[in-house]
Structure formats: structure tokens, C-alpha cells
């Protein structure tokens, strides 16, 4: 979610709530005479508000599961999640009166810190990366479909190379025969050699690149190197094949975009692997903490 001026209301409301919480804390701590703060009226107030917020934040995943439910717009939920998440920081600190406590309290405190930190990191990434992806990945597709699209790109490339060979056969020219992974020219070497080189480069570099997700070691992974490879191929093969090479180059370009998209998508969503599980763990612990605290208070 992009944080822009439409968030101003939420930002102001959050700032006011933090100010209010701070005033309550300062007042309460000036009246507080000893010991743990969590069990005082103010400590309970902060603790209850914090627990309510944690429950609310965890409900976001439920909201996403049922997008058609009429319980507020998704955007509103996201904004509330983002800004009220920041409010959780002072509430937890004030509830604990800047101490760690022990056992569950300590673990819950560090979980809260990790969840909030990962959330802030995620918000920052989501603020920057989607725009960057739009700029740098023109052939962006649905992330979950990348493997499928990549397979189709490979199929298209195979068809293009196959087309070149069948076109030659149509003209009565057996260019080469396959021998293992390489190809040997059987026609006039002067005519067939460039095609054999094309075939070898395709089998040895282009096809593995299109087949494997990422393939960081392949020269085609870098755009500059890829240009060099295709420039050399163009010099080898007759001008009639140049259009096919253009198509192959475009397919490689599209594959590079998919790789780039994969990379950016992982950066954009990896934090969720920390944020979401820790949020559930935090919810479980704070509920236990609340029950135990109320029992023994």
C-alpha cells in the first residue's frame, strides 16, 4: 500500500492517540508508587487496548479471506492495520512501563517488536517496490503464473528454432543432424555452419536460460551480455533469419522480466513469512498472558 496524502487522517488520528496514551501514562506513572505497572488501572487500560489491537490486526487475514463481506473496504482495513499497528508500540511500552517482565511477557514483548518491525519493513517495501516493478518489469504477469508463462516462452522459442530448420528442409537443405547435445553440419559447411552455431547456442545457452527460473550464471541473464550473444548470432546467420533472432531476443527479454519480477516479488512478500506467523504466535501468547495476569492479579 502506497502511503500518500490520503493517509493524512489516519496519521493525525494515530498521533493524537499516541499523545493521549502518553498523557495518560505520564499521569498514571506520577501517581504510581511502586512495583509492576501492568496491574494498575492504567496498565490494564493499555494492556486491554493493546490486546484489542492485536486481535484486530490478526482479523485482517480473515478479512482478506472473505473479500465480499460487507465489513468495511479493504483499503480502510489496510490503513487501520498500518497506523494502528504503530499505535501498538507505545501501548505495549506503557503497559509494561518500559520493563520486559518474565516468561510469556518477555517473549510476547520481543514478538511484538519483531511483528512491528517486519510490518514497518513490509510497509516500506510496499511503498517502493510496486512502483519500481511497474517501471522495470514491463512484461509483469501474475506471480503464481510465472512458471506457466515461462514454459510457454520456451515452447515459442522451440517453435521458432524448429521453424528455421523446417524452412531449410522445405528448401531441400538438410542443414545438420543432431548428435547428442550438439549438431553437425551435413550440408555445405559454408551454408550449414552458421545454422549449426545457432542451433548450438540455442541448445547450450538460450534454452537452459528459458527453462530454468533465475539461472543467474547464464550470460543471457544480463541484458548487456544477451545483446552481445544475439549480435554475434546476427553476424553469423543469413539476413532471412534475423527476424527469428529478434523474436528469440524478445522472448529472452520477457524471461528476464519474469526473473526480475520473481526477485522483486520475493523481496516484496518475504517479510510476510515473518510477519504473519509471528502475529499469530503473538496473539496466542498475549491471550494466555492476559488470562494468567487477570487470574493472579
Amino acid at each position, binding site marked *: 500500500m502506497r502511503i500518500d496524502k490520503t493517509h493524512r487522517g489516519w496519521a493525525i488520528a494515530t498521533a493524537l492517540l499516541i499523545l493521549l496514551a502518553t498523557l495518560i501514562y505520564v499521569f498514571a506513572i506520577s501517581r*504510581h*508508587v*511502586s*512495583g*509492576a505497572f*501492568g496491574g494498575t488501572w492504567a496498565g490494564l487500560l493499555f494492556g486491554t487496548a493493546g490486546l484489542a489491537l492485536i486481535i484486530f490486526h490478526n482479523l485482517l487475514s480473515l478479512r482478506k479471506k472473505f473479500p465480499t463481506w460487507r465489513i468495511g473496504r479493504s483499503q480502510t482495513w489496510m490503513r487501520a492495520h498500518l497506523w494502528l499497528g504503530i499505535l501498538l508500540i507505545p501501548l505495549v511500552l506503557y503497559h509494561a512501563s518500559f*520493563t520486559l*517482565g*518474565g*516468561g*510469556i*511477557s518477555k*517473549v510476547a514483548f520481543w514478538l511484538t517488536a519483531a511483528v512491528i518491525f517486519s510490518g514497518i519493513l513490509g510497509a516500506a517495501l510496499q511503498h517502493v517496490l510496486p512502483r519500481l516493478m511497474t517501471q522495470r518489469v514491463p512484461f509483469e*504477469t*501474475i*506471480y*503464481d*503464473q510465472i512458471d*506457466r*508463462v515461462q514454459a*510457454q516462452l520456451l515452447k*515459442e522459442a522451440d*517453435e*521458432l528454432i*524448429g*521453424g*528455421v530448420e*523446417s*524452412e531449410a528442409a522445405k528448401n531441400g537443405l538438410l542443414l545438420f543432424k543432431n548428435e547428442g547435445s550438439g549438431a553437425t553440419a551435413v550440408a555445405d559447411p559454408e551454408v550449414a555452419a552458421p545454422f549449426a552455431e545457432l542451433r548450438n547456442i540455442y541448445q547450450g545457452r538460450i534454452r537452459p536460460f528459458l527453462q530454468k527460473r533465475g539461472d543467474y550464471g547464464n550470460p543471457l541473464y544480463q541484458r548487456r551480455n544477451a545483446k552481445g550473444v544475439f549480435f554475434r548470432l546476427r553476424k553469423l546467420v543469413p539476413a*532471412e*533469419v534475423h*527476424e*527469428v533472432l529478434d*523474436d528469440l531476443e*524478445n*522472448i529472452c527479454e520477457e524471461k528476464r522480466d519474469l526473473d526480475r519480477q520473481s526477485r522483486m516479488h520475493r523481496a516484496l*512478500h518475504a517479510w*510476510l*513469512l515473518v510477519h*504473519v*506467523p*509471528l502475529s*499469530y*504466535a503473538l*496473539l*496466542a*501468547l498475549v491471550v*494466555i498472558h492476559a488470562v*494468567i*495476569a*487477570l*487470574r*493472579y*492479579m
Partner: protein
Amino acid sequence: MVRRTRSAKRLGTRHDLNYFKHWTAARKWRLAVSVSLPVVLVAWFLTGLGRGDSSGFTPGPMSHSHAFIGKKCESCHAFKVEGIALMKFRKKVTDEACLECHQAPAHKSNQAFTPGCSSCHSEHTASQDLRHVASGNCTQCHAAGVPHFQPVTGFPSKHPEFRPLQDSFRDPGTVALNHTVHLKPIQGPAGMVQLECADCHRTPVDASAGWRFASATTSPAVPKDSPSGLMLPVNYERNCAACHQLQFDSRFSASAPHQEPAAVRKFILTTYREYITANPNELRNKRNVLRLIPAANADPALRTPEQFVATQSRDAEQLLWRKTCKECHQIDFSQSEQRQGLPRVLPAQITTKWLAHASFDHAPHAALSCVSCHVKTQTSVETSEVLVPSIKTCAACHKDSVQLEGRAENGCFECHQYHDWSQRKPFVGKKSISQLAR
């Protein structure tokens, strides 16, 4: 040549329209971790609880003194408050639970309210000593000022100066002592000596070590009820006798006893009687007129032993009352006629505990030289001067919480007691070892 076509129709076939029904690896991972992590964490804590280890659920470590009952929550967390059963769910800490093991005399009979034990003594906090209560517990009443006490809201800046240093308070002691003279090289029993503070002032803990200027014949016992952290009162036999001998006649090496005038008179009479019995020729000797004794009679005729004893003892007493004793003590001659000519020595009134409502222990301060705190001692010439250090001296170290490096604790508990331990009663415990220990 076959060319690549990017028609909308072809692009449309690229995607699986039901892709959202299939779970990606990332989504599966997220679900697995989201379920397993909370389960593992909760299981971890519950397993600890199952093993009887409740430390995972406590808000903080137990204090040192209660750590041994740390696994028996029910020792303090009871189901009843003042005999009334709580809801089964609640397990509140009650005063009754504390008083089963502890005695806690009230503070003052007229105190505004009696706080619950746990409102001052906070368990499960970082504090290792439950006696270290927050000053706010005290200042919630004392900030406004209570009868006979000035308002106190903190230490040192918001604490009144120690009472002995306020206004025109004077040392009530009647034994004359000039500290300045005694801290310079002075004539000792065998030449010049330099007195140390510890020659006269020591706590009971250090009293057993030899005293440099004690009496050669008697050594007074240390009173059993002496506060261990305070200086013993200065004592003649222990501190003064070696220099300030109570000789009354050059013919006798023995000094008069440092006792009441009647006992001194008895000692003198006995000494002279024994002397004249042993030395009858003394009756023919003239009196030593060189002895300048106030109010002495210049009567040289000593015909009988009785006359000798009477005259000699009278002169000796005058020497003692009007010179030797008077050097240190205040002597009252006003009613001597009714007291058979004996004066009254005013009580010494040596103050042992200067801060009546506070406790002080010299032991933790042993690293300091005496004069670094008792600064005025070096220039004190009058007995009536109070040499207790000012609150500013304490504040040089005791200016903040002990948690801060370079500062000593400044909480009220450091010097004051809430419970009036003079009200202590015999206490009979009710718990068995198995009820507490595990």
C-alpha cells in the same frame, strides 16, 4: 520463416484461469509456519507448566527471599481475601498470606490508611530485596506533611535538613571536649601523641580491638543493646583514662575511680586511712603547702589520724571536684550542703543516635575517612556543636536510584523504617517445611 505472434488470443491462453485455487509453495510455507509457530510456543509454555515450572507465566523473577517458594504459587496467591472466598478463577495475593509467615507491625496509630503488603513490597519485579520499597509509598502521605514532620517528597533536594542541624539545636552533652585540640599532637601518657578518630569512636563491631588510651586496670564491656552501625558513646575507661588520670595525691599512684562523688569520697577516705595506718610518722610532717587548692585551709596541725584523714581527703576532694573532674564534667555545688558536701556531676548525656527517626550504619561507609563526612570536627572547639554531617554531604553520593552507575541509592527505605518494630510481638509460624520447600 515462422514468426512469433503476440495476439490477444494467444496471450489469453497463457494463464490458468483457476490459478488462485492452487496453493503456491510460499503460501503453503506461510500456513505451515503460521500454525506451527504458535502451537510450538504455547506447547512450550504448557509443558513447562505441566512440569510444575510456572516461571514462564510470572511477570518477573522472584525476589531472593521468596525464590525458594517460587514454584508454589498458592503460598501467596490465595482464593480468599479476609476470609471471603474469591471467584475460583481469581488467585489474588492477600495480606493474610503474607502474615502467615511474617510479622508486620503497623506504622503509626494515627496513619491515614494502612496499605496492603503487596502495594509496597512488589514481588515479581526486578527488585531482589522486597525491603527496597519505592519512595512513592512513603511520600504519598509524607509529601503533604504529617503531624510533627515537615513535608518530604524526595531525597536529597526535597528532604528537610537533619533535625540536629536545624535552627539552634545544640549538642545536649555535658562532657567538655575540644575536638580541634584533640586532633592536633597532644601530650599523651608517654610523650606527645597524634590521636586518631578511632581512638575514641568505634562501632560495637570494632570494639574488641585494643584501645590505645584505655585504662590499664579496667576495661568496660560494650553494652549489648548498642546499635551495631552506630558509634559507641565515648567512655572514660576506654577512651580517656590513659591521659586524663584522676590522681588526687602525688603519694599515691592509684587514680580515683571514675564514679559518682560518693564512691570517689569512699575511695579517698579508705586510701588515706590505710596510708596513715601504714605511715604514722606522717602526722609529724607539715602539709604540702605548695598544692594550690581552691578553698583549702592552711592548717598545719595534724595531731590525730582522724584529723589527717579528714584534712587530706577534704583537700583531695577539692582538687578533684574543682579541677580534675571539672576539666571535663559540669559540676553543681549548689546543693552540696544537703549532700554532705558532695557536688552533683551533671549526667553526660552523650547522644548515640543523632537521627531519631532514621537508621544509619557506619559499616558500608567504612571506606570513607571520618572527616570527609564529619567536616566540622576539625574546627570544632565547643562541646555544644553538632558534628553530624549535613544532608548535603549524604547527597554527594545518595542522589539517585542505585541502578544508575556512580550514584548511591536514595530511596526512603535506605534510612527509614515503615513498620514500628517496637510493637513486635512473639511470632509463631504455622507452615511446615513441606508446605514451603519443594
